């Protein structure tokens, strides 16, 4: 499973950060095109549960079958 992050959609609401069971999502230091700090995932910790996709109001996450990361 590979996770594509559409970082320019992220508005830094933090819903995914709060709901991640492994606490492996954080905010990047550099801002995106719309002026927010977008999310980054620590792929070593991620279990691909999809909680971040479920709570995201802005369609940032796309879980793509196949591939490692």
């Amino acid at each position: 499973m590979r996770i594509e992050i559409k970082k320019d959609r992220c508005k830094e609401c933090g819903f995914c950060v709060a709901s991640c069971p492994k606490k492996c999502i954080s905010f990047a230091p550099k801002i995106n095109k719309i002026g927010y700090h977008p999310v980054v995932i620590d792929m070593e910790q991620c279990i691909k549960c999809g909680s971040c996709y479920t709570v995201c109001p802005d369609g940032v996450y796309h879980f793509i079958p196949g591939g490692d990361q």
Partner: protein
Amino acid sequence: MEKERKVPHFVDNPSNFCPGCGHGIVSRLVAECLEELGQDRNVIYTIGIGCSSNMSAGMKADRLHCCHGRASAVASGMKRVNPQNVIISYQGDGDAYSIGMGESMGTAYRNEKITMITINNTNYGMTGGQMSATTMPGQKTTTTVYGRDCSVTGNPFKFPELVASQFDVAYAARGSVDSVGNINRLKGYIKDALEAQIAGEGYSVVEVLIPCPTNWGMTPLESLDHIRNNIIPYYTLGVKKARGGKSV
């Protein structure tokens, strides 16, 4: 087998909602249900005035922006003329319950075969956070600066409970987007509501409690806590009328 998780094609665009607004989650869930039911190219939305109007910007589906409060009435006409289409009336609480109370009640009263998705953020979000029909008792808004006094303003309006107990509707439920579990439950309610329409059972409504961090003066995460601790105890979640005519 690995399952792809992707925002459905017709709502897969950047949105104009505030950070932490729940509208994006609800519009995605509705789109997912339509896709799973094979109706994603057979749907017409009627959209109300308010923050719900922003949904139109990121959506590529047939839709009509209706006069303020009249989306349910327009949806009734659409369904009578095009009974083969799935018609969804997507409105906020100010649109559906304040200015549009007459149309919303009339549509439920006639048991029109449409689905109404009402987004309840307990204030008029787009116009700056004024008191709405669903503002909580004691809640401070820009027009109730000392907190809502129900002895003057009347009590908050519980639409799903009202239509479930008084009218002959097919399905009524209330969900929330405050947690992963509640979002998954909400998706089940929306799917049931759409299936009730497709089966021709009658009027279905799902009210959704969403955060409005901008007008509540909270961070997005604080606003989720506010829903959990203060709003859900008042606006209880769950199915208010199940399919098959059972009041819950």
